[in-house]
């Protein structure tokens, strides 16, 4: 049976009446036309579907929409402020960290989630956290450059002046 679920997406409050078991990914894409989060496997193995749930990177394909009730979600569409890209988006663009780009929204939000938790991650932190993200174009070298670049920026701005 459908339930009413209300959450904040990219700063806006949204209410959907839907089966609470539907994956958050489907609701974002089909009901709210936020197609930036991608389907790649539907079972937590690729993280193309990553969104931020209360600032944490989660696999939206594995998150029933009921779990998002009264929570705050950020998708790739809500990361920039107007024309100003988020620093992680800037870093990805500057490094050309995409080939087909299908993994990119998930990679960017995965990086934002990582930096929210660890503003100054070590190489090992980056590798172990990003290990769950797949890029089938195998663009990992440039992805790593972009992630390090983004990490460098946050570390700098987090450092006491």
């Amino acid at each position, binding site marked *: 049976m459908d339930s009413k679920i209300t959450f904040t997406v990219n700063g806006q409050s949204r209410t959907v009446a*839907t*089966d609470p*078991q*539907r*994956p958050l990914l*489907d609701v974002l*894409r*089909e*009901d709210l*036309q*936020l*197609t*930036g*989060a*991608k*389907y*790649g*496997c*539907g*079972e937590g*193995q*690729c993280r*193309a579907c990553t969104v931020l749930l209360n600032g944490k990177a989660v696999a939206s394909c594995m998150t029933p929409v009921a779990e998002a009730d009264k929570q705050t979600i950020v*998708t*790739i*569409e809500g*990361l*920039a402020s107007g024309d100003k*890209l988020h620093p992680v*988006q800037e870093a*990805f*663009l500057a490094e*050309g960290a*995409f*080939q*087909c*780009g*299908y*993994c*990119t*929204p998930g990679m*960017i939000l995965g990086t934002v989630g990582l930096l929210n938790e660890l503003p100054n991650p070590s190489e090992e932190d*980056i*590798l*172990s956290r*990003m*290990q769950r*993200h*797949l*890029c*089938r*174009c*195998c*663009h*990992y*070298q*440039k*992805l*790593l450059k972009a992630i390090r670049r983004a990490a460098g920026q946050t570390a700098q701005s987090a450092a006491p002046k």
Partner: protein
Amino acid sequence: MTRDFTTDEALSPDYEETAERVDYSFGLKRRSFVQILSAGLLIAVSAPALAQRRGGRGGGGTRSIAARIHLGKDGTITVMTGKVEGGQGARAELSQAAAEELRVPLSQIQLVMADTSLVPDDGITAGSGSTPRTVPAVRQGAAAARDLLLDFACKRWNVDRNAVQLKDGKVTDAAGQRTLTYADLAASDDASKALEQPIPSDVTLTPVKEWKVFGHPASRPNGRDIVTGAHKYPSDITRPGMLYGKVLRAPSYGAKLTSVDLGPAKAMKDVVAVQDGQFVGVAAPTAFLAEQARAAIAKTAKWDLSPHPASKDLFDYLKQHAHDYPSASPFADELAKAKHALRQSYHVAYVQHAPLEPRAAVAEWTDGKLTVWTGTQNPFGCRSDLMRAFHLSEDHVRVIVPDFGGGFGGKHTGEVAEEAARLAQAASRPVSLRWTREEEFTWAYFRPAALIEAEASLDDKGTLTSWHFININSGGSAVDTPYRSGKTRCQFLRSETPLRQGSYRVLAAAANNFARESFMDELAAAAGTDPLDFRLAHLENPRLRAVLETAASRFNWKERASKKSPNTGVGLACGTEKGSYVAACVEVGISQGNITVRRVCEVFECGAILNPDNLLSQVQGAIIMGLGPALREEMRFENGEMLNASFRKYHVPRFQDVPALDIHLLNRPDLASAGAGETPIVVIAPAIANAVFHATGFRVRAMPIEVPKL
């Protein structure tokens, strides 16, 4: 050297760039379809389509300038191509091609790709063909438009060609007083007539030493849309009133549907269900509901199962079913008098492309006309498939290919578009159909498995005196050896294939190079020679020698190969395919049967470099992608069912697999540019296999590579 194939067809370069089609024919009973075919009614549709499949690779033929380039009165420049962008960099490269010849900044070019109602047919995007064939075609069109602008200025000012200069999209007269632009040309009276002229074949292209755009890094023109999520991939396309589809799949390979009850699906609110012969599918307002409907009717479906070989028996099966398997060694005399005679077999498993975006299509019918948005490498081929499946004429089908999420040779077909179109027809609404990962791992096509048998002889000086090489099932790409090898015969034999198979990045060249380069290492060992020296002693091609020697010296091969350190090995391999040349030296670490590729030094040469940044990305991506089939990837199946149709069980490369990479791109501005997205992959597996031998003394003869736990 002789080159034997079992059939003439195999000689066509198109042979391997195809995949087994899912032959849908909707709305007609099979019998009547056959009758119509034999009555010749459908031939009018399928014959040109066939001609297009066969001839449509290069985008040749005479075309008007206007078919390639549209000049707007507002100064916009729109370039049209039938090529697609799946991450390989065609959008940037073809934009560069136009900008270079038009002498405009790269940012001024708008590139329309792969919309069959707008663009010329540049053939399938495959086989590294965009660089050698479509880049010149776009350059010619752009150069012709450039000449029109120059002529226009000369006429207007009544001066001759050497009195004008074209830079940054502006023609200036000698005094630097007057200027004219493409917008002025577009606004002139006879512009449209001039642009309707065919592109002259003798138009002059900008020589390499004058390149301003080519040879410099060009980033992906729509990169900003990629990082903001604004770009709409095929699976993101949304149409008003659109439903989401699901297709009922057979429980196993070869199973035939005998009955199904659509009732349970039709009883669900807003659900549409359809059966058309073996095709059964549903559409619903959400994918979640569509899946419930599919599951409900799946319970009612009855199937006739058919026996299917298991992957553990695969290589026996391929050999038993090989066509024209030779009854005896052709060079028995050489083998008899040789100092050393060697014979080995190599196995290469089926692998999946697993592009991150699974097959997806949105289909919409309006007044009997069909529009489809889909991720295919073959837009015009997909249009032909739709015409055939729905008995439509060319002007009733439009295929649009938005930049999509990876292909690697795995999206040459249009089955998902046909399925979406059938569902949309049943629903009288647009339908989006996105294959699941499991469908992709089961019903898409696979890189063909290979059984390769190699036999060679050496004389007492360690020189090859004969070479016999047979590829069974996987294909003829790079089956010929680049080495001088005495009496030589290289063959590709077809077999029966248990799985649906088709193209994959570099085709059979990966399997053939794996076997050849592994075998060369064994021969070097038999001859008591260093693997590098052994290869060079048999190698004449200067371009292949150059990449091999450069890789060896960058890697410090001689010193590292002569050292033995526990659990560490080094190996090398080289090869050529699609007009480009590659060599790699690798270092691996081995413990408990686990192989870690620590370092890869690869040297690659593909003629004049057009876009150095993208070339580097392609080489990096190919190397890392190549680690998968080398070390782990393998489709396993039994009783017609896939045993590992998931990223949980089928392990593709991830961040922690990335080795230290030393990539060197050899630029040869004096040579024509060849495509580069494929060939860099061919040396990875054999170099690793040879390094495993160096470390352990164990000879690897299968991909994926396994070493016994020591």
